[in-house]
């Protein structure tokens, strides 16, 4: 099978090892196919003429190839300006999140810190209890976050999960290194910046990626906390396109003007929506390969030895 072409590069491999790699490749390839096929459908639809696609039967290849859907999405200027918002929130949000989270994780990693356990418990607590829609909205509005760009950044500044992951990663860095730095006269800040940060690339990469993608994917904040579509990120614009299809099935019309308006607003074809999906997804997909190199084996230990 196909998997035979990718022989493991290991020098010594027993028959059992060979069996393991065959099974591995088979499973991974099967999984990729299962995942890829439906996604191909999205791609095919996006390159197909909208009216033609509505007739059904477009699976993995466009039947009537066209770039019109993409052209149309870009022509509607709102997606370009929405992109600006998305990029801004992703960069600013991820940077600030990493800064605040890594500071806190480092502090909580120091065993001599009094009140460590209590603080961690208190932080975990927030993962289980939400404020509920109304109190949260009231508080954001009190903080002036409604209709404000910072509502994209501040509420998602520190995630409990990432904080704890980062702290546990710091746990894995040999303590001798911190100790040595402290003996050299580095304070906590010095230890953090000179020892811990350079060694934490893998975890920074993972948390950075997760945070960036969360920022990229979030449509809710735009939909709920922004009353002006001018500050919407791309995902909110997209969600609006998609939800229009959803709400259509409950459409109640009482008069002709409403009926016309309703049928006007649903002229967005499926193909156009899929083009929008591709446009909103493609850029962030490209990020992963760059992040991946930080997960290469031995990053940590190599650094320690060097």
């Amino acid at each position, binding site marked *: 099978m196909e998997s035979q072409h990718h022989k493991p590069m290991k020098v010594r491999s027993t028959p059992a090892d060979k069996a393991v790699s065959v099974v591995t490749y088979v499973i991974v390839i099967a999984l990729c196919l299962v995942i890829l096929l439906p996604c191909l459908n999205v791609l095919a639809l996006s390159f197909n003429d909208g009216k033609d696609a509505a007739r059904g039967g477009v699976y993995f290849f466009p039947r009537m190839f066209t770039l019109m859907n993409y052209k149309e999405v870009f022509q509607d200027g709102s997606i370009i300006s929405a992109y600006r918002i998305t990029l801004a929130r992703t960069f600013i949000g991820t940077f600030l999140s990493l800064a605040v989270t890594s500071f*806190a994780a480092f502090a909580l990693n120091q065993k001599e810190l009094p009140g460590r*356990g209590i603080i961690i418990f208190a932080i975990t607590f927030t993962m289980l209890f939400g404020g509920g829609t109304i109190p949260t909205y009231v508080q954001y509005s009190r903080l002036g976050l409604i209709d404000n760009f910072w509502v994209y950044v501040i509420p998602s500044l520190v995630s409990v999960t990432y904080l704890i992951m980062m702290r546990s990663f710091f746990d894995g860095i040999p303590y001798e290194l911190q100790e040595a730095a402290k003996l050299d006269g580095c304070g906590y800040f010095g230890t953090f910046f000179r020892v811990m940060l350079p060694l934490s690339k893998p975890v920074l*990469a*993972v948390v950075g990626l997760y945070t960036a*993608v969360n920022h990229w994917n979030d449509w809710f904040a735009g939909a709920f906390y922004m009353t002006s579509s001018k500050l919407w990120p791309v995902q909110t614009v997209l969600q609006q396109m998609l939800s229009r299809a959803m709400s259509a099935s409950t459409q109640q019309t009482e008069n002709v003007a409403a009926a016309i308006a309703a049928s006007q607003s649903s002229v967005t074809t499926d193909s156009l929506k899929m083009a929008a999906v591709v446009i909103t997804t493609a850029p962030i997909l490209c990020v*992963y390969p760059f992040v991946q190199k930080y997960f290469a084996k031995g990053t940590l230990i190599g650094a320690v030895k060097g």
Partner: protein
Amino acid sequence: MCATTCDKIENLQRESSMRKGKQNPSGITIRTKPLWKRMLSCWPLYLMLLPAIVYYILICYVPIAGNVLAFKDYSFRKGIWGSPWVGMKYFNMFFSSYDCWRLIRNTLHIGFIKCILEFPFAILLALLLNEIRAEKFKKVTQTITYLPHFLSSVIIVTMLQRILAPNTGVLNQIIKALGGGGDTFFLMQSGYFHRILFTMDIWRNIGWDSIIYLAAISGVDQELYEAASMDGCNRLGQCWHVTLPGIRGTIGLLFIMGVGGLLSSGFEQMWLLRTPGNMAVADTLDVYVVRIGLQNGQFGYASAIGLIQGLVGLVLVVATNSISKKFTEVALW
């Protein structure tokens, strides 16, 4: 052959983890100082914590305090704190409603699938990907597996409906080709609901969730692999004796944190998958809160249910954490 070396490796592993977690040698002297002096000496740490603490207070705790709404009759004008108290009214209302136990049962069932059953799959994928030596292939497959994370629920459910459609759907076509009836209406039969949910979640999340494990695997000491391979462990053995123990901490932490979500199912996915045929099992607390609480302006009632969910989550997390601490030394606090 391998079995004997395993002990060695586990020793190495333990040594390595001991080395990592070694106590501050001067810890004993610090402990004897009075608390305030110890706190004072740590001032840079508190400074580093400050932004996160301010964040948690302003963004999390103040709204959490707003949960007192569960005991109040909310008035727009008087606000959260000024509204009149109603005691346990909403809790009584919820527990006396005939639907309450069905909702709790449904939610627990779905929570169990989401928090427990789905949990190991991302780890499995990470282990599999770790076995792939061809770097290019690995990069491509990883990117593919995390692709579905970017598709919104609306799109996924639309595709799902297409695949599962009676007669015309791909799945039914396959069943027909294999000699079956091919007219099963999967989404209308409550018996299939949990399987559909499970498959959709795995499809969507497996690649994404595996990233964190891959990162953890990258942190495993390479010397351990060398030692294991020297002692004749094959790759399966290395995986079992080196990789898995090496990421044990990550697995444990994520599990403990995940358990807290046992009583929450999320809204959007449930809402999209819900049909009159499967609503007997698909109605969960989260759906109920949106339908009853928010749309009808019953904010107190919505808060009460949120509180119940949170309390159950808290108990579960605290319990799991202490059990884990006792037996595996992996713990949140």
